[in-house]
């Protein structure tokens, strides 16, 4: 789908902060508010804006035990449907948060979120590796999140500028 310059600007602004009001976006890009509302609605309908979510640093919560694993999966592609069919079988599991087809030594990169390491281990051994086309899996557990989706989780960068300067 072809997007005009203003639509691209709206996407850039919302991608950084989904909570911008249409009225403010309208001022920023020089359009009437109704126009912006209309454009956003169209982008939502076309699923170019897929979803609005909140970036949460769960590690800040006391007693949080959740874990995230990134799993490299080698698969045998199936005639006619390639990797799509197995990718679909994997992403349907609710504990899977992302699935990417990759170039390189393995095929699918699967991110799995669970309440504990055990839960993820169970998912890999019982659900993932038992799929027909899956040849092998390598599971990496995330130890700490520094930066995600362009956001630094605990940033030390402050505004060091003097309050008034020429």
């Amino acid at each position, binding site marked *: 789908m072809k997007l005009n310059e203003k639509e691209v*600007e709206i996407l*850039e*602004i919302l991608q950084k*902060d989904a909570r*911008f009001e249409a009225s*403010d976006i309208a*001022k*920023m*890009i*020089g359009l009437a508010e109704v126009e912006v509302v209309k454009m956003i609605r169209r982008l939502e309908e076309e699923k170019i804006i897929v979803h609005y979510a909140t970036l949460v640093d769960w590690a800040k919560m006391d007693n949080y035990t959740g874990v995230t694993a990134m799993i490299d999966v080698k698969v045998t592609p199936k005639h006619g449907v390639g990797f799509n069919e197995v990718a679909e079988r994997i992403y349907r599991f609710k504990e899977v948060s992302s699935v990417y087809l990759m170039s390189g030594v393995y095929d699918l990169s699967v991110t799995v979120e669970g309440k504990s390491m055990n839960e993820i281990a169970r998912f890999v051994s019982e659900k993932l590796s038992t799929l027909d086309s899956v040849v092998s899996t390598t599971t990496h557990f995330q130890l700490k999140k520094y930066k995600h989706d362009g956001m630094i989780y605990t940033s030390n*960068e402050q*505004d060091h*500028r*003097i*309050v*008034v*300067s*020429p």
Partner: protein
Amino acid sequence: MTTGKSYIAKSVESMRPSGIRKFFDLAATMEGVVSLGVGEPDFVTSWPIREAAISSLEQGFTSYTANAGLIELRREISYYMSNRFLVNYSPQDEIIVTNGASQALDIAIRAITDPGDEIIVVEPCFVSYAPLVELAGGKAVTIGTTGETEFKLQPEQLEAAITPKTKAILLCYPNNPTGTQLDTAELQLIANIVKKHDLLVIADEIYAELAYDEDHTSIATLDGMRERTILINGFSKAFAMTGWRLGFTCAPEEISGAMLKIHQYAMMCASTPAQYAAVEALQHGIADVESMKKDYRRRRNYLVQSLNEIGLDCHLPGGAFYVFPSIQSTGLTSEQFAEQLLLEEKVAVVPGSVFGEGGEGYIRCSYASSMSQLQEAIKRISHFIEKGRA
């Protein structure tokens, strides 16, 4: 303990301290201030540029450079200026790397000013122009531009200010504090007068990269102007490198030679790590400039429209990162407005009067702040104005 005698030079004693200073002192003591008073980018120098300076230190590049600056940096500047602004200067003898555009201004003014020479300064403008002219023994002749012409210098104003003693005119577009930009046709009218009277132009183009509606035209590109222009530019605004203190001049060989004499005695050379960082900035940093510019443009649009909505008339300026709304509807002077706004609503702006003739009745608001800061500032200014009306 004093000896009872003043040792201070008269030219310095008679200088007024920068009006911004007073505000800084006041604002610095307060907590929770939202500042639109800052004349530098809110972006931190991008990491690859910082990394280049660190790497130069690790490799031990800590000695002086050539007076005019590292030759590889001057080559990059030459290429950059030609590429971005269509002006051509030889890295060998027409470019000098300075300690910020501020020092570039100083050597430019000193290199051309004889005692009694008049230098025309177009106000409102950056606070250092007139004092630097006076320190160099010249006379600063000011022209006040006005809100009615969106602070654009009018050709007839310039004509009227020229006398047989006029040596040069100091121009800054895009302008600090008004954000005003001149287009090619408007610049051409100025250039015609400059040529007619055989004057020089010192063109402070430090904000040249931050021109939002059309590409910046350097006055040196106009017919017959290269030989009578000293271009001043630097890394502070475009590459968010204010604290590195790195600028440069581009000027014909004879003038560059004169400026270099002052530079070699007064400064020796610009900071070496900063020069290595600047090489990286010019080689790989342009993409970051573009992305900062996009953000600035949106903030400008937001701020101008919001200020107009809350009753502060404001033209849409073409460049820099300042807007210059009128506060005349409030009945306050710009200093009163800025002081009360700071004390009552904790928003720092700079009164237009500190920038010279034509600035009274206006305030400078910088949009080198995040959108959320701008939104908060608008909320508070709006509250301040409504209170004043009640």
